[in-house]
């Protein structure tokens, strides 16, 4: 039996989601056509739009389907700045933001403008006071006090240094360490301090698991398919009525002119079914995932010389556990667990191939060895007690084995 505990990378699809994908993969007919064969795909997209919009309780018109959450982040940041005619943007995020958010911000502020990163504490949390200060002034974003974790402030260009933020990205759930931000309070603090800023809520890790009613106060909400139980290459940007946005992918009439190109009908239809299932089963899913995470954390932390990174399991993303261990490398632990039939990730699912410690863990104040030793174990709603037990045993054996091989 294989233990699959890498839901941070991909979730299994439900029978209904897979059937919906199969149905529209086999169908011939563009949803934009005028003939009868268009009706089915067009209706499927309309139904999916309703289901995805319901995640925020906004109307169906708010939904722009994208090829995954990374495109949605790009569209949110670049599209809102283009619509506002901002030439020297001030973009605010935090050091735990998704790598694509940070990449977009760096690109847009490479020559002019400013990128600011709000401080985080040792569990990765952003405070309303720090964020309100960061969005209104360069000076607020650079705290680096001992015991408060660390923060990074990258300022490129000085044309608008100190100007109020144009775009603020709030990362609701952090993929590596599981930190959950008080997104509604943070959005309210930004709105009070900087009323003209466009607020982006990155809900890739929380959609379907945590309620997102009214976008938690944001103007734009990034959704990914994975945590809903849809393919990870599906996603959407949800747009509060009245928020102005230019397209990133220009084309024709698709998605109200905001995202050109042929629709991925199987993916969009699957996203809609998954969103419906996720909303209907949310409480049960979250309870199962939290129970597994608590068992995993207890079992893995029983190994001597280990520590939990990020908040307590009851206060973080459901199903999410990240543990560091003295004297081992996270990649080696993940490979050793794979050899024992358990699928997990090294500390960062997106950056482990770069051969360096996660900047997220460094920003939270972990030393280099502990940051490199992190392993990410993520349970899903279908995870079994047997898989959890197998993962705990595999982790203990892997760490013991690797420590035994280390030069004395």
């Amino acid at each position, binding site marked *: 039996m294989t233990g699959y505990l890498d839901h941070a990378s991909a979730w299994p699809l439900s029978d209904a989601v897979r059937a919906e994908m199969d149905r529209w993969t086999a169908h011939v007919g563009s949803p934009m056509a005028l003939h009868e064969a268009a009706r089915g795909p067009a209706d499927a997209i309309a139904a999916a739009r309703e289901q995805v919009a319901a995640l925020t309780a906004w109307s169906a018109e708010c939904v722009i389907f994208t090829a995954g959450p990374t495109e949605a982040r790009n569209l949110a940041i670049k*599209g809102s700045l*283009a*619509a506002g*005619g901002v030439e020297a943007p001030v973009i605010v995020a935090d050091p735990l933001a998704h790598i694509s958010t940070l990449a977009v911000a760096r690109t847009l502020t490479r020559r002019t403008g400013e990128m600011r990163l709000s401080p985080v504490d040792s569990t990765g949390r952003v405070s309303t006071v720090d964020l309100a200060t960061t969005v209104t002034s360069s000076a607020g974003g650079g705290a680096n006090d001992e015991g408060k974790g660390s923060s990074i402030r990258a300022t490129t260009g000085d044309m608008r240094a100190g100007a109020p933020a144009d775009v603020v990205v709030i990362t609701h759930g952090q993929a590596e360490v599981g930190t959950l931000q008080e997104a509604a309070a943070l959005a309210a603090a930004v709105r009070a301090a900087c009323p003209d800023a466009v607020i982006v809520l990155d809900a890739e890790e929380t959609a379907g698991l945590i309620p997102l009613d009214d976008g938690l106060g944001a103007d734009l909400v990034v959704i990914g398919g994975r945590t809903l139980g849809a393919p990870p290459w599906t996603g959407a940007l949800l747009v509060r009525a009245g928020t*102005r*946005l*230019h*397209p990133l992918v*220009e084309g*024709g*009439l698709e998605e*109200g*002119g*905001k995202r050109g190109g042929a629709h991925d009908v199987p993916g969009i239809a699957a996203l809609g079914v998954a969103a419906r299932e996720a909303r209907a089963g949310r409480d049960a899913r979250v309870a199962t995932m939290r129970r597994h995470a608590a068992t995993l954390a207890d079992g893995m932390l029983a190994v001597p010389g280990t520590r939990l990174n990020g908040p307590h399991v009851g206060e973080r993303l459901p199903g999410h556990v990240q543990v560091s261990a003295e004297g081992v490398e996270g990649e080696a632990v993940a490979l050793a667990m794979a050899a024992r039939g358990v699928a997990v990730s090294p500390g960062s699912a997106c950056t482990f191939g770069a051969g360096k410690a996660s900047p997220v863990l460094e920003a939270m104040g972990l030393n280099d060895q502990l940051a490199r030793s992190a392993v990410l174990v993520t349970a899903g709603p279908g995870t079994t007690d047997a898989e959890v037990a197998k993962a705990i045993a595999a982790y203990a054996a892997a760490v013991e084995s690797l420590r035994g091989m280390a030069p004395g």
Partner: protein
Amino acid sequence: MDALGTWCPVPVTMTRDTIAAMARGQVLEVLADDPMVFLDLPAWCHDAGHEVLSMEQRRDVITSLIRVG
């Protein structure tokens, strides 16, 4: 109707599709930033029997009011 960031004929086509679901006498506000809408939108409205009540540009945004005919 928000057609910001799109180029003609997309704003006109979006206007056509939106008006198709509206009743005679209702007024549609169209936001666009392609200057071609100054030419294309009145021309299409004339052909389709709708009335352009106003077209104003503030910074880059052109706001058009159209009464459905």
